[in-house]
């Protein structure tokens, strides 16, 4: 497909874009398909040592003694790190609420299986792992708490003894007159839900090479970092370095999805390097480490929700009570994930009042970390399941109850009870489109027929709002202060007219380098081939954040438009001087600076750049010989939240409606996804092919979360998942090949009308499939309210009604 760019030529000086809005081939790909792209494990530095980490097998224990003397003696070992070094050199990480974080390696006690207790750097990973076997650790075992209920019991063992209990955060948000709305409603539906732990599991685990400059007391970390600037700042805090003495060099990485943010490995490799007198140290987390204790487990949640509904199906109030098992101490920005649903708490609906009770609890499971979508995938599963429960009780069709409760197009900008403002949307058009695509009526007929044959066929129809372009203000009330997330670029044109875009983030898979090249090429009317996109490490990059929060596509567009605009202004002055007219008479269009109304009086941008760099004598007085500009974008008009967390947080509100048809096998509990349809409205699609890829990838992860994936823990706190044969990622047979349609309601508040679009499908797919399964099995008088709806779990449920 091709997208139309709204507001041309005001937003971009081009009569007809050649690249933006087109399914452009990615500039990232030649390096990737040939195996040439430099992922972190490809990097070798002279004298580099290799690290391995000793991890505790106990969920909760006091460390009595660590004896690493034999390991130190092993030939080939260059450094051994233990809790003693940590105590001397390291602070508690800054990513958790005050009093709840840990150091990268345990010092006095361990709080989850897989927590590092020692580490070795040696001439090879093989030798480093040999050395681990020589380290003796003596523990005093402590009773473990393995779920929030145990953790909150009176006299429960405490993970952090200096705290009053294992409750990290307990707060209530009330928006509107919830009591009245619930009292006046004709129906109040209440249900409990359980979302079990899942996680990001990018194909590449995290890795780094760290080098401590022991002479100048500074640190360089090369690695697979999603948010390089943030990682640099965090290392300065945890490793006691001035912030300008940590340099982070992000390498292209094999996916992240939020699940590569864990800094423990980096801190450990950095301190090993420090101990090895500055030798570079590589640490590549292996998959077993990732699954056991990497920064890759998310959303371990217990919900109770109530939905207040009028007799005619009008949704009026929503209460959600969430108890979130954060694992050992909320180090993975845990509060943020629980607070994100505030940005789209009531989904697509005009629900007038809502309440959110939020309790974050520490247990002896691995700490939870971000995963694509952050909080909303489980939240939407709960909200959309509640809507279906109401529809079933009222005898309404699932599409009809949704349709009648939508925010209407003329109500935008629309402020939801939890405070965020949705910019735009046409929910009913999206619904109609997907209903037509899916032939929904025929699906229902098929279902009736299947039921008469005793088959369990179900249809899920679910819509969500995807908050796009995250802002820190969404999280201020849970302890992450700040408004605004800068994203900067530098655009430079050289003396021959070739263009370089410098960004502060590395390749991760979403095609943002291609997008940068598309935008700049169209802005200056040049071929994409003459635009190069290059990465700058944290010490030289403009202020940046990088990937996260369905934000980067919009943010990078804003930054590039801003930088190009600044160059255009300079070029206008220079070309006016050269063509002897007033700057106001000059316009940039299709790569040329033209004198308005004088056909033929024009200069190509390369001529202007060349003149600036090579003929200072011709420049207007005071003009710098600098055909380049930096621009740092942040979302406009964001504000500080009130005490109930209400603010304009996420800038854009994309919308999607998914329809799935599933069949549940009564004998085996296996769910087969027969058909899957999607219409997604994420505004202008700057590269429709990559947007489609984001959607399909999100579907795959959603299918995994709702049908297969689960971090299982035994009752004693032992994780039962340590291999891909235990943690079941969906393969090519499991992921439905979806039929997709698009609607484009351009955002009125973003550059070129694009909305954040990286997370919408994982927001929607789990709920869609869960609703479809319940639609299939409810005639039997059962429903499933726990994810994943694995064959085993469904089979047990089906057995009850045999």
């Amino acid at each position, binding site marked *: 497909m091709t997208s139309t760019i709204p507001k041309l030529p005001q937003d971009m000086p081009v009569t007809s874009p050649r690249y933006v809005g087109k*399914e452009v*081939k*990615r500039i*990232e*790909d*030649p*390096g*990737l*398909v*040939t*195996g*040439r*792209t430099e*992922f972190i*494990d*490809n990097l070798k530095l002279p004298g580099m040592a290799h690290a391995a980490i000793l991890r505790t097998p106990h969920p909760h224990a006091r460390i009595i003694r660590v004896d690493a003397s034999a390991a130190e003696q092993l030939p080939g070992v260059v450094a051994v790190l233990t809790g003693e070094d940590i105590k001397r050199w390291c602070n508690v990480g800054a990513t958790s609420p005050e009093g709840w974080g840990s150091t990268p390696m345990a010092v006095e006690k361990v709080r989850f299986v897989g927590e590092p207790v020692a580490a070795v750097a040696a001439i090879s990973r*093989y030798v480093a792992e040999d050395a681990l076997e020589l380290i003796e650790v003596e523990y005093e075992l402590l009773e473990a708490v393995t779920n929030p209920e145990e953790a909150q019991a009176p006299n429960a063992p405490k993970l952090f003894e200096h705290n009053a209990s294992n409750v990290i955060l307990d707060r209530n948000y009330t928006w509107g007159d919830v009591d009245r709305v619930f009292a006046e409603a004709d129906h109040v539906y209440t249900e409990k839900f359980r979302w079990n732990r899942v996680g*990001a*599991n*990018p*194909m*590449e*685990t995290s890795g780094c090479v760290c080098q401590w400059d022991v002479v100048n007391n500074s640190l360089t970390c090369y690695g697979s970092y999603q948010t390089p600037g943030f990682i640099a700042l965090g290392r300065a805090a945890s490793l006691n370095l001035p912030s300008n003495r940590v340099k982070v060099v992000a390498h*292209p*990485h*094999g*996916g992240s*999805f939020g699940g590569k943010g864990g800094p423990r490995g980096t801190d450990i490799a950095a301190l090993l390097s420090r101990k090895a007198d500055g030798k570079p140290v590589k640490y590549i987390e*292996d*998959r*077993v480490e990732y699954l056991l204790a990497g920064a890759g487990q998310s959303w371990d949640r217990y919900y109770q929700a109530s939905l207040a509904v009028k007799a005619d199906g009008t949704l009026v109030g929503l209460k959600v009570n969430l108890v979130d098992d954060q694992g050992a101490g909320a180090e993975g920005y845990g509060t943020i994930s629980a607070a994100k649903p505030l940005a789209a708490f009531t989904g697509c609906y005009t629900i007038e009042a809502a309440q959110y009770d939020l309790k974050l609890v520490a247990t002896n499971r691995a700490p939870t970390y971000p995963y694509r979508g952050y909080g909303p995938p489980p939240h939407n599963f709960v909200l959309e399941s509640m809507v279906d429960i109401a529809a079933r009780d009222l005898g309404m069709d699932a599409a009809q109850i949704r349709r009648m409760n939508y925010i209407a197009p003329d109500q935008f900008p629309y402020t939801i009870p939890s405070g965020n403002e949705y910019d735009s949307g046409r929910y009913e058009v999206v619904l109609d489109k997907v209903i037509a695509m899916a032939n929904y009526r025929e699906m229902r007929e098929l279902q009736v027929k299947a039921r008469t044959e005793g088959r369990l066929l179900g249809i899920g129809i679910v819509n969500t709002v995807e908050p796009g372009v995250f802002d820190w203000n969404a999280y201020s009330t849970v302890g992450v202060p700040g408004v605004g997330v800068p994203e900067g670029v530098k655009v430079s044109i050289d003396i021959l007219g070739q263009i370089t875009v410098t960004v502060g983030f590395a*390749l*991760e*898979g*979403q*095609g943002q380098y291609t997008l940068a090249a598309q935008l700049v090429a169209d802005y200056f009317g040049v071929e994409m081939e003459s635009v190069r996109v290059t990465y700058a490490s944290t010490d030289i990059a403009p202020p940046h954040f990088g990937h996260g929060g369905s934000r980067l596509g919009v943010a990078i567009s804003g930054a590039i438009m801003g930088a190009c605009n600044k160059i255009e202004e300079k070029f206008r002055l220079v070309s006016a001087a050269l063509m002897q007219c007033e700057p106001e008479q000059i316009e940039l269009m299709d790569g040329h600076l033209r004198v308005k109304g004088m056909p033929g009086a024009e200069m190509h941008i390369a001529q202007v750049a060349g003149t600036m760099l090579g003929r200072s004598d011709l420049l207007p007085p005071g003009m710098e010989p600098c055909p380049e500009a930096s621009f740092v974008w942040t979302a406009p008009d964001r504000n500080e939240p009130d005490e109930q967390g209400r603010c304009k947080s996420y800038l854009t509100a994309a919308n999607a409606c998914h329809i799935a048809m599933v069949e549940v096998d009564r004998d085996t509990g296996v769910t087969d996804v027969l058909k899957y349809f999607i219409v997604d409205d994420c505004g202008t699609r700057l590269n429709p*092919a*990559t947007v*489609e*890829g984001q959607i*399909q*990838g*999100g*579907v*795959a*992860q959603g299918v995994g979360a709702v049908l297969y994936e689960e971090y299982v823990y035994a009752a004693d706190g032992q994780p039962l998942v340590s*291999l*891909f*044969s235990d943690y079941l*990622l969906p*393969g*090519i*047979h499991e*992921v439905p*090949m*979806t039929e997709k349609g698009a609607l484009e309601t351009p955002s009125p508040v973003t550059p070129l009308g694009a909305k954040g679009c990286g997370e919408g499908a994982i927001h929607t797919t789990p709920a869609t499939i869960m609703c479809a399964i319940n639609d299939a099995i409810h005639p039997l008088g059962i429903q499933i309210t726990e994810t994943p709806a694995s064959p085993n779990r469904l089979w047990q449920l089906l057995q009850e009604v045999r």
Partner: protein
Amino acid sequence: MTALQHVTVTVNGITYERSVDPRLSLVDFLRHELHLTGTHVGCEHGVCGACTIIKDGMAVRSCLLLAVQSDGTNLQTVEGLRNAETGELHPIQQAFIDEHGLQCGFCTPGFLMSTLELLADNPSPTDQEIKDALDGNLCRCTGYQSIIKSVRLAAAKTSGGKLAGTHGSA
């Protein structure tokens, strides 16, 4: 330390002789001894397929083999797909680019090598056959739909003619 063992192996048409630790995995040997870092490691336990290479004409998981087991064999890795003389990409590589068959690209070398084996055996596979051939390769980014399209396109571009193997291979 165990005595080193001698290995002679041909990779993408070039013969290498090395003395290796018997416990060295084949993928570590390729990546860290021969500096052929295009073959990736996603799990090291045989599930993800990122490390897939062709050994004597068959797709294998190089994380599950030891370097010493490759002695006397003929290997093909992703580095051998592109024609180094002309600079031309292999049709399978080009098809993955054309159909957006990758995002982060970390799984891609494995998918390319599995596809190479598939199309060598079956130049015009059905979708079901494509799925069956690739179900040992995990991708966390794409949701596979564009991968299937890529393989279809590669098949269409090469069907009729015999699909070229890796460059430099026998």
